């Protein structure tokens, strides 16, 4: 704390004192300055190990928010991303920005009566979307529940039996619910995440500041954060990429399920739908009355997870009329993605 006034040199400073004192004062001040500067330098020294790709560049600094980009800007950015991916993974990617289709609103329906909890969807999703393998990021979490209640709190996230389904259990895969009133979008301070016209909530990975407020806001635990530089083996990289979905992320940003935006906007099914061996996963355009999802929402018994929170998800669970599981037991997928 501050000293008492007796110690305080309030008079004119050094020049009026004896030369010896001035020299001594000068030397000690100099030594203190050198010590101070070297201490600061030492404190900053870890920055030497900063990945060159992480250094702020003018190009990155000037990059606009996705919604403000002109078509030329977009082209340049897609070009830069392709260049960076090639430099890092030695794979030439096809980075696109497919626009939302007119008159389309995507909806997902998942048959809880049929799901056997094999986690094939989890690993198909990882293979498709280029999330980090270490630390491991997965968009889909399959909950094992005992028959008799739908209570996530009593669910088992880490079930690992030799064969699924287990007797007296049912399975509830959870991923981004693409809410119509998404709390994650509301809370983002920089509008780095928003809802597209086709109902998919996306993230501009080049705009996210990594505050993780959206992660706290999500009632479905659907968002993931890159706590470290994501690691994806080059041979596992999916080169079919889109700006708003599966292009490689950097550390310090959020990511999430986008219903495989780069596939579904080009008329393909999400990877998790395609891989499901039991046909539990249905996906389509809810605005088309003839689509499978429209039929399910119209005719089936539908359950909305955490409906009381009122975020109006575009993800529905449904049940078969005759509670039945048609599939024979199979071995679940292990952590390496093997069947």
């Amino acid at each position, binding site marked *: *704390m501050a000293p008492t006034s007796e110690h305080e040199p309030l008079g004119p400073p050094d020049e009026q004192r004896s030369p010896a004192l001035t020299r001594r004062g000068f030397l000690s001040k100099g030594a203190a300055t050198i010590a101070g500067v070297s201490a600061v330098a030492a404190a900053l020294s870890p920055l030497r190990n900063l990945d060159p790709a992480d250094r702020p560049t003018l190009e990155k600094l000037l990059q606009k928010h996705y919604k403000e980009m002109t078509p030329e800007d977009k082209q340049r950015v897609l070009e830069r991303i392709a260049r960076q991916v090639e430099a890092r993974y030695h794979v030439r990617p096809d980075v696109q920005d497919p626009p939302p289709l007119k008159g389309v609103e995507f909806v997902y329906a998942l048959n809880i009566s049929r799901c056997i909890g094999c986690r094939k969807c989890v690993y198909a999703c990882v293979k498709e979307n280029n999330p980090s393998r270490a630390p491991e990021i997965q968009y889909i979490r399959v909950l094992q529940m005992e028959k008799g209640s739908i209570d996530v709190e009593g669910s088992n996230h880490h079930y690992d039996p030799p064969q699924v389904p287990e007797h007296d259990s049912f399975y509830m895969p959870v991923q981004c619910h693409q809410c119509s009133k998404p709390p994650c979008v*509301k809370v983002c*301070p920089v509008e780095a995440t928003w809802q597209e016209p086709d109902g998919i909530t996306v993230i501009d990975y080049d705009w996210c500041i990594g505050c*993780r407020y959206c*992660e706290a806001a999500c009632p479905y635990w659907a968002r993931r954060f890159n*706590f*470290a530089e994501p690691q994806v083996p080059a041979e596992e990289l999916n080169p079919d990429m889109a700006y708003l979905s599966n292009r490689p992320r950097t550390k310090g940003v959020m990511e999430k399920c986008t219903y495989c935006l780069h596939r579904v906007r080009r008329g393909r099914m999400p990877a998790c739908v395609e891989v499901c061996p039991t046909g539990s996963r249905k996906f389509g355009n809810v605005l088309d009355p003839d689509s499978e999802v429209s039929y399910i929402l119209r005719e089936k018994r539908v359950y909305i997870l955490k409906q009381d929170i009122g975020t109006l998800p575009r993800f529905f669970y449904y049940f078969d009329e005759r509670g039945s599981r048609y599939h024979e037991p199979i071995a679940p997928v292990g952590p390496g993605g093997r069947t």
Partner: protein
Amino acid sequence: MRRYLTFLWECMRISFVGDWRYHLWMTILTIIALIGLYAYCEQLVYGLVTTGMTDQVSWGMYIANFTYLVGLAAAAAMLVIPVYVYRNMHLYDVVIFGELLAVAVIIMCLLFVTVDLGRPDRFLHLFQRFNFPLSMLTWDVIALNGYLLLNVHICGYLIYTAYCERRPSPLFYVPFVFIAIIWAVTIHTVTAFLYVGLGGRPFWNSAIIAPRFLASAFAAGPSFIILTLQIVRRVTTHHVSDEALLTLRRIVQVAMVINIFLLGCELFTEFYTDSAHVASARYLYLGLHGHAALVPWIWTAIVFDGLATVLLIVPASRGLPLLNAACVLAIFGIWIEKGMGLIVPAFVPTPLGEIVEYQPTIRETLICFGIWAFGLLLYTIFVRISVPVLSGQLTYRKRFGQPAD
């Protein structure tokens, strides 16, 4: 203009001048702050994986300290209100120390938010696409920076006029003092709303969080000031009357009682109802399915809060030793309760029912210590400058022998 630059230079110079105790204290703080900076540089290189945070518990010590410090910044308002609203002149001489504390503490708050960011290099995006008024975080950015500016202006103006030996013109600071009072309430309310507005987190989604936040802030802030003022009184010539300390004691007393009452309301609602929403509270107070990392902490906090309240109520705490003990207990109790006790349990269990516990890492802890040291360093410098200037020992005239016209 030249005089103002001289003033700034003078402030710089004087913060390096002092006796050996001052130098020792400042050196220790600088070393801790630099160790924190070192740890932060490592975090910049490797990412937030250097912390104990996970996708399950995505906010930890940084946001906990941030939340607590927003409360501490209330100290200023609790000194200002008696002086400017109720004309209680006991506190008149010390009100500036509260405002200076607010400045240092808000800077710490901003640092804690910054170290929590995954991409601090992109903070400029806030200026380019500011999601106002939808995102409560943008409200908080405005509230905190506004409060910082108000207090910097008030303190800077008062100290500078003293340096020039002019009478401060009330027009230039009194309106700001009143704005700052209201603003002090808003920084807590807005920070509480940051958490309260999330429907997916039942532990936070309760109207009582904001009032509790204010009550605990008005207890912890003035407690901190009571201790600080005694240190100022001991090591400087600045006059601090016992009456000033006792006025603050009454504020802390009332705030603590309200805080305990609101805590009781919350506990009753959670545990008597005993609905599915109680899981987080159960985790915090009793442990959940064998996971109980926070239980010893929160009970320590409750014992500290309770003891502090009892001590503050009994007349014996008009004596300084007991009052100081109560203040220390209140500061630590509320730090646990408003920090870790408010932030972490909301993430346990996750919205999907998974239980993952949070354990801060050494690097994360060093960064927290670094920011605390830096904040104390700033506050020491502020006090170091303001004491001789406000007492008239250090003025432009005395220093340069010219009248400050």
